């Protein structure tokens, strides 16, 4: 995901951040297969082969800025695509989401 500099890159970053925030939602599960294909596609040319693409939800409770609590990250894989691009899940993301 491009983060970039605060001048030019910033003007791209906000769109990717919006996508990232929305794609992880269960209500947007129809976006997951195409997102996994898009992420995995560049690695198809890798001679070692592409085993699978996993979409991982990573989150933490945001500690109060004035407190001493430390941020603790948690994560879990909410969608996995086994092979690309011919074997897109036909069972639908709900069954293969691992939730």
């Amino acid at each position: 995901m491009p983060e970039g500099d605060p001048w030019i890159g910033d003007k791209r970053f906000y769109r990717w951040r919006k996508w990232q925030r929305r794609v992880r939602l269960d209500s947007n599960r129809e976006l997951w297969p195409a997102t996994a294909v898009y992420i995995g596609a560049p690695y198809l040319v890798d001679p070692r082969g592409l085993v699978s693409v996993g979409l991982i939800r990573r989150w933490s409770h945001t500690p109060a800025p004035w407190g001493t609590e430390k941020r603790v990250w948690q994560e879990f894989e909410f969608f996995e695509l086994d092979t690309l691009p011919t074997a897109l899940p036909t069972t639908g993301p709900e069954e293969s989401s691992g939730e």
Partner: protein
Amino acid sequence: MRTVSEAWSRFWHTPAESSTLTLFRAALGFVVLSWGISLGFDLRAFYSETGLLPAPEYTAYRISIFRWFTSDLAIAIAYLTLLGSALAVTVGRGFRLAAVLMWLMVCSFQFDNTYVLNGGDVLIRVLCAYTALYAVLAPGGSAGLPLSELFAPARAPQFGRAPVWLLRLVQIQLTLIYPFSIIDKFRGETWLEGTATTWALNLVEFQRLPLPDVMRESLLIGNGLTYGVLAVEFALPFLLWTHRTRRLGIGLGVGLHLGLNYAMRLGFFGWIMVAAYLAFLTPGEAGKLLLGARKLAASVGQRLSPRKEAADRAAA
């Protein structure tokens, strides 16, 4: 009743010198042009059939040419049309067609992938819609002064007169944003308890340019900023529409959005808000800004031309 009717007509239909319109038109065109250029890096990812959203769903009211034309060639043509029309609106050439095309292309890209939009993008679309409506309905020659005439060294620019209802729509749109923003803020707890800006400034993914640590860490400063933002947003509609406080309102509003734009990654939100504020300038104020830009351009041109001549002589 007659007085109300006359005031209504005066408000919407008294023509004014077109300097404010020229400034707003050029600013809107520039913002859309910049928005379009930044979109160019991610056309494939966001809009192509091989991208993140190969088959977007459209609800009935969403206008987009990508409902019918989905190839990469169509995306490329639409993208070039977006840039070309935004440039034409900026410089004030072919305004009627350019404003409609600009609105249509902005709608096409925005409705084709709504998952990447923020509030600034939506405001861009709304202001493009008002401008396209104005371009279609206003009489010919109502586009304001083309920039080529503003910056032409040979003669002084003549602004002429133009309808004001586009500027009125923009003013009302901008004003309505603040009450709704306040209502939205009161739904949560952090604005009421005075910690909202402290939380926001500490969200790493939103941080843009450096701020003193004390602004992120001090609860006292955070309280001041939070309640200050609420007070400004509450006051702005009154300040902007009162003759004696209009300039103060413009200064506070533009300052608020430049500050937000400095500190946080909010895309084009700050840019389009500042462009909308230009609609509140009087023709005299807008004319001064434009003539100032003309003088600056002439001064830069004069400074560069002797160097160019010297360089040409040296090359010869």
